[in-house]
């Protein structure tokens, strides 16, 4: 298990690199609605989940991979941190 990981930054970096090329990082705020705001579609969300599962060696339950749990950088980072514990 990795410790001292800045999940928030990891999530931001991944989303900016993969799905928002050229975007000003400041615009990706912690509470920006990602799924309901049309920024991550279902396939993007799935790719992101698979990426973080692999990178952090964690498993998200099917019911966690949804809008309730993954709609903001804040929510995603919190979910990843809770899994890594």
């Amino acid at each position: 298990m990795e410790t001292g990981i800045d999940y928030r930054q990891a999530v931001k970096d991944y989303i900016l690199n993969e799905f928002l090329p050229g975007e000003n990082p400041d615009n990706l705020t912690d509470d920006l609605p990602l799924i309901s705001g049309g920024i991550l579609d279902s396939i993007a969300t799935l790719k992101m989940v698979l990426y973080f599962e692999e990178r952090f060696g964690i498993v998200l339950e099917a019911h966690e991979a949804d809008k309730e749990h993954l709609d903001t950088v804040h929510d995603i980072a919190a979910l990843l941190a809770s899994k890594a514990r």
Partner: protein
Amino acid sequence: MPAPSPLHCALRESAARHPSRPAVVEPGSGTLDYRALDALSDRVRDRLAALGVRPRDRVGLYLRKSIDTVAAIFGILKTGAAYVPVDPDAPPARNAYILHNCAVAAAVVEARFAERLAAEIAALGGAVPAQLVVDETGGGHGLARALDAADARQPAAAIDDAMPGPDDLAYILYTSGSTGKPKGVMLSHENAVSFVEWCSDVFAPRPDDRLSSHAPFHFDLSILDIHLAIRHGAALVLIAEDRGKDPLHLARLIQDEKITIWYSAPSILSLMAQFGKLPEHDCSSLRLVLFAGEVFPVKHLRTLCAQLPAPRYFNLYGPTETNVCNYYEVVPPVPEARTAPYPIGRICEHLRGKAVDEHGNPVAAGDEGELCITGRGVMQGYWMLPEQTARGFLVDADGTRWYRTGDVVVEESDGNYIYRGRRDRMVKRRGYRVELGEIEAGLYQHPLIKEAAVVALPDADAGVRITAFLSSKDGTRASLIELKRFCAEKLPLYMIPDQFAWLDALPRTSTDKTDYQRLKEFA
């Protein structure tokens, strides 16, 4: 040929034959058997009639997919009205436009949408329809509570089921319109029943079948799911909209719910083949896998067939205006060398088809032409759009109306048709019809945007990739996040472009039209 019974008679017959068999299963929320579904929809019928709904009216359906929604559909049909389902996840203004456009007499609405819907319809200058408000859907309980509460205020008199004629409308399904406004496809009881009867002949469902209900109810794939299951006393297993794109969840659902007939857009099956870990699940119950709505990328179909070799696979093809009009059985395995998509197949037996040139004359087999369809399954027209309806049909010298699909096809010597592409600017994305013009109309509402042009290119992975080219009024360029959020406010999520690109000005042709060919090269 005698006129068919109205669509909803199938529920009454299945309830008499199989009263205690499961009719609708909503995993996590419950199951309703045929007797109970029939009784609950009777109550909806009586309440809607008390609210003023009469035969040949329209009734809106603005609910999350649930047992409640299925009961409401049959309740509406039993009044003799047509049901008009809208996408609960689409922008409220778009849904209000739809329900206002076809002047619904009433709407069955989830409480969280009710106030906004009334306000949006009032803003459009329309009379606010009567609402049957369901506080929370799930298991049919919310609907039953809403009916109980209304009965406590004033009981609704029990009426008989209406017996609409074959040409009376059963439902109106709104699809993307090129002018920026969705258009209502009017489908009659004869249209619906002739399609369901064709499905019965080809797929031979049994009472012990369990059909997936993956497609949302505003999408025409749902007609097969709901009405074929009910006609045969089979179980309809509902898949909630918000779980429908989670491949692991879907694989587990096939296993746990012992689905025997699966039907969805190819994009969902592609996801399951790539990410659903199907070989780790017991999918041995599956006997039929049906897909429709877009071209199935061959590499994903090959993977799927390799993982699940047992079921029979059918490629179903057809626009909402005809529902399925062609079909082709894909026999696994998919050869390694194959790269061409499978044919859309032969014309369904309840319809007739032909390919025509730009003058409407039939082309020789082997030549490209636009596919035109006639027969009992073909829609009556677009709601209140007589000109678009007239343009949508080719009328023969003998008066036969042929629906022009807009799809360019080639008929092979064995009677199977091959799909070649579109005549116009419509594309299919995740099974949905998307008019690129509707996306442009949405983008033009952005205050910074001076010009917007949207192009779609084939994509081996996703099927299609949509790019929006924009120019700005004063040089200020909105960020990607802002553009995506703006689109999410104006358009259904499946219409949001994959990419946005700002240009100083859009390229023009010599006749000063947007040069879409150049833009496709840029994309």
